[in-house]
C-alpha cells in the first residue's frame, strides 16, 4: 500500500478531477512547484477580512445556560441531539453535562452475524472470535460497518462515538484494505476503549494492532528491509505532524532520516490471523542497532529494546511539544471551526497543548477545557461547522426520532437498516471504516476549504433526496419501514406549543438549525404549514385532529402540512450547519 499515491490522487481529484490520472504518476517532489490550487471564491485559508471573529479565550464559560447553549454543546458532541436530550442538558448545568459527556460508557457487545453466507456461527451470534474465511469476509465487514452505524444511532449523551470517529479519522485504517473484519473489529474496539482515554496509550496500542500492521505494512518491515510506511505516517499524520520544508528532507518537526530511524524501531512486528487475532514480535526480523534521531528530536538515540522498543519511540515523539499542539489543533477543527488564526493559536491551541502534556496525554481534561470554554460558547463559533455526511444522516434519524427495528424483533432487519444508512452516507462521500486514504477525510485537513468539501453540486442534492425520502414515504427493507413521523414528533411537544403554529415552528427551528432564521424565512416556513391562512386555522386543524386521531382525513390533513414544513426546513442551507 503506497499511501502517497492515495494522497496525490485525492488532492488531484479535489482540485482538478480530469487530471487525476496524471497526478498519480507525478513524483511527490514536484508537488511544491504545483500551481496555486483552484478553489471556490468562498474558500479560505483565513476568513475574509471584515468578518467577525471570536476573540474569546479558554477561560471557563460562565454565561447563560439554556437551550441554545445546551443545543450547541450537544450538536458538536453528538450526532444530532434530540429535543429531549437538549432539554435534559438545558435543565442541568454545564459541569454536569460535561461530566456526563466525558464519562466513558460500557463497551458495546460485538457485531453479530446477520447473513446466511457466514456459516461459521448462527444468525445473531458474533463472528469476531471465529477463524478467518475469505468467503465470509464480505458479509462480516458489512456486519462490522453496520454495527458501527448502530452504535452511532444508539449513542447516549456521551462523547464516546464522536471521539471514536475522531480517532478513526486520525489513526486511519481502511477496512477494505486489511481484509480481515476480525482485525477491523479489534481496531474499532481499541478506538472505543481509548476514545476518552489516553492518546499516547492509544498511539502505542494502535502501532501494533493487527489492522494497522497490515494497513501500513508494518508486518512486512524487517531489519534487512525496513518498510517506512508506518514510521512516516506515525510522524507526519498521527503525532508530531509535518512542518514547513526548511532544508532538503527536513520538515521542521522531523527529517527523512527520522522516518528511516522510526521504521527501524518498528521492524519485527507481524499480525496474527489466528483466533484470537493479535500481533507478535519476532526478534530475528527486528533491526538490532541503536537508532539515531535528528536534532528535531534532540539527537535522541533509541537503544535496542526488542518488543518494547516501539514504546520508546512513541514516548520520544510525545516528548515533542509539537505533538500535543498537532493533536489539539485537530481536535479544535473537529469540535469548533477549521480556521485557526494567530489569536486562536495563542489563546486556545497552546493552552490546550500544555494541558494535554500536564495531564500526561489524557484527553478528557483537554476536552473539558475546550468544550467548557468561553471560546466554545462564543456565539461566533456557533453554527459554523458544516455537517459531515454522518452528522447529517445520523443526525437526521436521531433528531427526528425515527424508529428503527430492534434486535429483539429481528437482528437481520436491524442490521439491514443500518446497512442502508451506510449506503446513504457513502453516497454523500463518507464511508464508515473506509476513509479515502491514510490522512482521513479531506474535510479535516485539506486547505483551504476543509469541511466545505462535504458540500458540492452532487452531494447536496443527495442530502436533499434523503431528507425528502424520510419526510415522505420513508424507506422499507425486510418489511420494516423507517420514516419520520411528524405527528408523533409534534404530539411530543407541549400541547400549547403543538397547537400554536408560531411556537411549533420555533420549536422545530431551534432543534434543527443552529443559527437564528430571519423573519422572512420564518414566514416562508409558515407559508408551507399554513398556506395563505391566518394563524388560528392551524389551531383549528390541529384540535380537529386531536379530537379524532383515528380519522384518516383529519390525520392526513395535518400530516401533509407538517411534512411540508419540515421538508422546507430541512431544505434550508442552514440545516447543513452544526
Amino acid at each position, binding site marked *: 500500500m503506497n499511501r502517497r499515491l492515495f494522497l496525490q490522487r485525492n488532492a488531484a481529484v479535489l482540485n482538478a478531477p480530469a487530471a487525476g490520472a496524471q497526478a498519480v504518476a507525478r513524483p511527490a517532489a514536484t508537488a511544491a512547484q504545483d500551481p496555486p490550487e483552484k478553489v471556490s471564491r*468562498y474558500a*479560505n485559508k483565513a*476568513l*475574509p477580512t*471584515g*468578518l*467577525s*471573529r*471570536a476573540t474569546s479565550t479558554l477561560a471557563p464559560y460562565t454565561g447563560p445556560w439554556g437551550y441554545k447553549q445546551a443545543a450547541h454543546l450537544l450538536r458538536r458532541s453528538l450526532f444530532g441531539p434530540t429535543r429531549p436530550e437538549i432539554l435534559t442538558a438545558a435543565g442541568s448545568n454545564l459541569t454536569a453535562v460535561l461530566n456526563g459527556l466525558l464519562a466513558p460508557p460500557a463497551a458495546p457487545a460485538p457485531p453479530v452475524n446477520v447473513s446466511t453466507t457466514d456459516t461459521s456461527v448462527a444468525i445473531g451470534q458474533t463472528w469476531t472470535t471465529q477463524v478467518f474465511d475469505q468467503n465470509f469476509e464480505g458479509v462480516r465487514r458489512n456486519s462490522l460497518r453496520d454495527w458501527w452505524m448502530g452504535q452511532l444511532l444508539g449513542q447516549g449523551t456521551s462523547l464516546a462515538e464522536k471521539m471514536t470517529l475522531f480517532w478513526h479519522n486520525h489513526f486511519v485504517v481502511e477496512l477494505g484494505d486489511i481484509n480481515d473484519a476480525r482485525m477491523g473489529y479489534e481496531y474499532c474496539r481499541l478506538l472505543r476503549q481509548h476514545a476518552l482515554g489516553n492518546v499516547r496509550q492509544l498511539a502505542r496500542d494502535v502501532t501494533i494492532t493487527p489492522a494497522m500492521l497490515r494497513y501500513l505494512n508494518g508486518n512486512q518491515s524487517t531489519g534487512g528491509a525496513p518498510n517506512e510506511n508506518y514510521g512516516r505516517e506515525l510522524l507526519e499524520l498521527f503525532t508530531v505532524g509535518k512542518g514547513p520544508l526548511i532544508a532538503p528532507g527536513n520538515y521542521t518537526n522531523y527529517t527523512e532520516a527520522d522516518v528511516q530511524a522510526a521504521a527501524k524501531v518498528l521492524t519485527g512486528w507481524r499480525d496474527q490471523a489466528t483466533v484470537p487475532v493479535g500481533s507478535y514480535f519476532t526478534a530475528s526480523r527486528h533491526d538490532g542497532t541503536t537508532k539515531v534521531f535528528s536534532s528535531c528530536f534532540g539527537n535522541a538515540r533509541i537503544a535496542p529494546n526488542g518488543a518494547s522498543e516501539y514504546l520508546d519511540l512513541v514516548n520520544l515523539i510525545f516528548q515533542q511539544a509539537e505533538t500535543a499542539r498537532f493533536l489539539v489543533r485537530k481536535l479544535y477543527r473537529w469540535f469548533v*471551526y477549521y*480556521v485557526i488564526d494567530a489569536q486562536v493559536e495563542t489563546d486556545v491551541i497552546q493552552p490546550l497543548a500544555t494541558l494535554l502534556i500536564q495531564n500526561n496525554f489524557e484527553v478528557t481534561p483537554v476536552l473539558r477545557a475546550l468544550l467548557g470554554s468561553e471560546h466554545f460558547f462564543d*456565539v*461566533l*463559533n*456557533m*453554527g*459554523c*461547522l*458544516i455537517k459531515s455526511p454522518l452528522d447529517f444522516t445520523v443526525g437526521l434519524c436521531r433528531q427526528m426520532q425515527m424508529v428503527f427495528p430492534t434486535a429483539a424483533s429481528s437482528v437481520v432487519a436491524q442490521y439491514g437498516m443500518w446497512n442502508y444508512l451506510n449506503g446513504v452516507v457513502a453516497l454523500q462521500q463518507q464511508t464508515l471504516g473506509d476513509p479515502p486514504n491514510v490522512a482521513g477525510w479531506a474535510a479535516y485537513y485539506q486547505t483551504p476549504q476543509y469541511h*466545505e468539501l462535504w*458540500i*458540492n*453540486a452532487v452531494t*447536496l*442534492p443527495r442530502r*436533499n433526496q434523503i431528507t*425528502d425520502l424520510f419526510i415522505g414515504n420513508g424507506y422499507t427493507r425486510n418489511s420494516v419501514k423507517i420514516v419520520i413521523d411528524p405527528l408523533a414528533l409534534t404530539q411530543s411537544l407541549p400541547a400549547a406549543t403543538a397547537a400554536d403554529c408560531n411556537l411549533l415552528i420555533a420549536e422545530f427551528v431551534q432543534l434543527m438549525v*443552529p*443559527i437564528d432564521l*430571519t423573519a*422572512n*424565512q420564518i414566514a*416562508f*416556513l409558515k*407559508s*408551507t404549514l399554513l*398556506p*395563505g*391562512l*391566518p394563524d388560528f*386555522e392551524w389551531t*383549528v*386543524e390541529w384540535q*380537529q385532529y386531536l379530537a379524532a386521531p383515528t380519522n*384518516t*382525513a*383529519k390525520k*392526513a*390533513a*395535518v400530516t*401533509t*402540512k407538517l411534512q*411540508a414544513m419540515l421538508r*422546507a426546513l430541512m*431544505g*434550508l*442551507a*442552514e440545516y*447543513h*450547519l452544526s
Partner: protein
Amino acid sequence: MKRREFLQTTAAATAGTALLAGVPIGAYGYSPQLAALTNATTQSDKVLVIIQLQGGNDGLNMIIPLDQYPALMAARANIALPQNQVLPLTTATGIHPAMAALHNLYQNGQVGVVQSVGYPNPNFSHFRATDIWTSGSDSNVTLTTGWAGRYLDGEYPGFPTGFPSAQNPDPLAISIGSVVSNCVQGPSVNMGMAIASTSSFLQLLSGGVDVAPNTPAGHELTFIRQVVSQTQVYTTAIQAAAGRAQTLSPLYPTAGQNSLADQLKIVAQLVAGGLQTRIYVCTLGGFDTHTLQVPTTGSPTTGTHATLLGKIAEAVNAFQDDLRRHAVQDRVVGLTFSEFGRRIKSNSGNGTDHGAAAPLLVFGSKVNPMVHGPNPTLPASAGVNDNVAMQFDFRSVYTSILQDWFQVTPATLTQLFGRSFPYVPVLRPGALLATASKAEVADFTVYPNPAPRDGRATVAYDSAGGHVQVVLLDALGREVRRAVDRELPRGAQQLPLDLSGLAPGAYYCQVREASRTGSRIVVVE
C-alpha cells in the same frame, strides 16, 4: 369563423397523424410548427395557469345571483352588496364591482364563470379541502399526488431522471413563490419547481435572500447557498427565457402591491420568452374571511374581500393585456380555485365561515366566455349550516381543460382521476382541439332541421350510457341551452330540445359523453 377553425384543426390533426405514422413523436424536438401540425399529446405549446385562492373564497360575494336578492339579503344583510352596485354578466348573474376589469374582459370574450363548483360530501377543513382540490381525489379518498402532477408524470415518464434534456430543457411546472404546489406533486417527486423571481433562485432552498450574518456561520451559509444555486439545473433556462421578453403591459401595479399581479407578470415573461413549461401555479392568500370581510362602517363594496377580488381582477387584466401585447394570448388559459366557498349566511362579525361549492373563474382568449350553469338556489331564510350545493364537480373542469387544452384522451383522464367526469365546455369550441381525437357519436341527428323559431327539435342518437350532456351553443360558442345533463341508460334516445326564445341563426347542438362527442349544426329559422 369558429367552425372554420374547428374544421381546420381537425384536418390538420388527421393529416399530421398520417404524415408521422409509425414515428414516435418523442423523437422529434419541440417545434411550434410540429405542435401545430400534429396536436400530438406529447407536443403542446399550450400553457395552463392555475391560481389558488387560499383560505376559501366567498363565492356568493364574487359572482352574485341577481335573481335571488331577497334570499341573499336575508342571509347576509350585513355584508351583501347593494344590488345596484353589482355588475351584470347576464340578466340573472352579476359580478362584484371590484372586479370591473373582469366584467370588461367577460364582455370581450376572455372570461368564463363556472357556477357552484365543488365535490360530493364537502370537507370544511382548509388542509383537507385543499388536499382534495390539489389531488383531485374524492372526499373520502386520500391521494398523495397532485392532479396536474399525475398528468405530467404520464407525459414525462421517469422525471426527474434524465431531465432536463434536449427535448425538454425547461421545468415541467413552475410555482411562482417559495413553495412548490401540491397540484403538481408527482408519484415520487414534485414535478414543479418554485421560483420567486426570474433573477434569483436562492429562495428555492433558503426561503429568502436575506443577507447571511457577518459571522463564520454566515460565511459557511453563503458558501452552501452558492452551491444551492449552482445545483438548480433549470436556472439557466429560466433566466434565458426571462431575458428574451420584457414586460409590455403598463397595467401591472407597482411591484409589491399586488402579489398575484407580480406572479402573473413573471408567468407572462416566461411564456413570452419561450419557456416550454406547461403549467404555472400562482397563489393569493387571505380569503379566510371569518371576520370583517366588509367593514363595519362604510360601503360593503369595500373591505378585505373587495380588496382581494380587486387584486384578482387587476392582475388577470394586466396579464391578459401583457399576453396580447406579446401575441401569445391564444396559448394561455387560466383558472382560479379555492379550497371551498363560504357559508350562505354571514356571521355577526361581518364575515363568513367555511362553506362548500363556489364559482370558479376561467380566463384567456380561448375560454368560453359565458356563465356555466344557473345560479345556486338560496333558501329563502338560510340557516347557519346552509351551503351552496355543488353543480359542477371540480374534476369536470380539470378533465375538460386537460382534454381540450392538452389533448389528453378520455381513457387517460379516467386513469388520472379514477373515473370519468361530465364534460364542461370551459374552452371555446374553436379550442376544442381534442374533439377530433374523441370518438364521434354515431347516427346523431337533430330534426326538424332547420327548425322553426320558438319551436322544438328532437335530438336522436344512440347513447353509450352514463352521464350525458346535450347543449346548444351559439356561433360564439356560448351555451344558450342545456337540454340534458344527467345519467342516461344505454340505447336509443329521443331527447327534446326547446328552442323558444332563440334568435334565428346557426347553432351547434353538442352531445357529450365521457368518451364520445358529437356536434351538428342546427339552424333556427
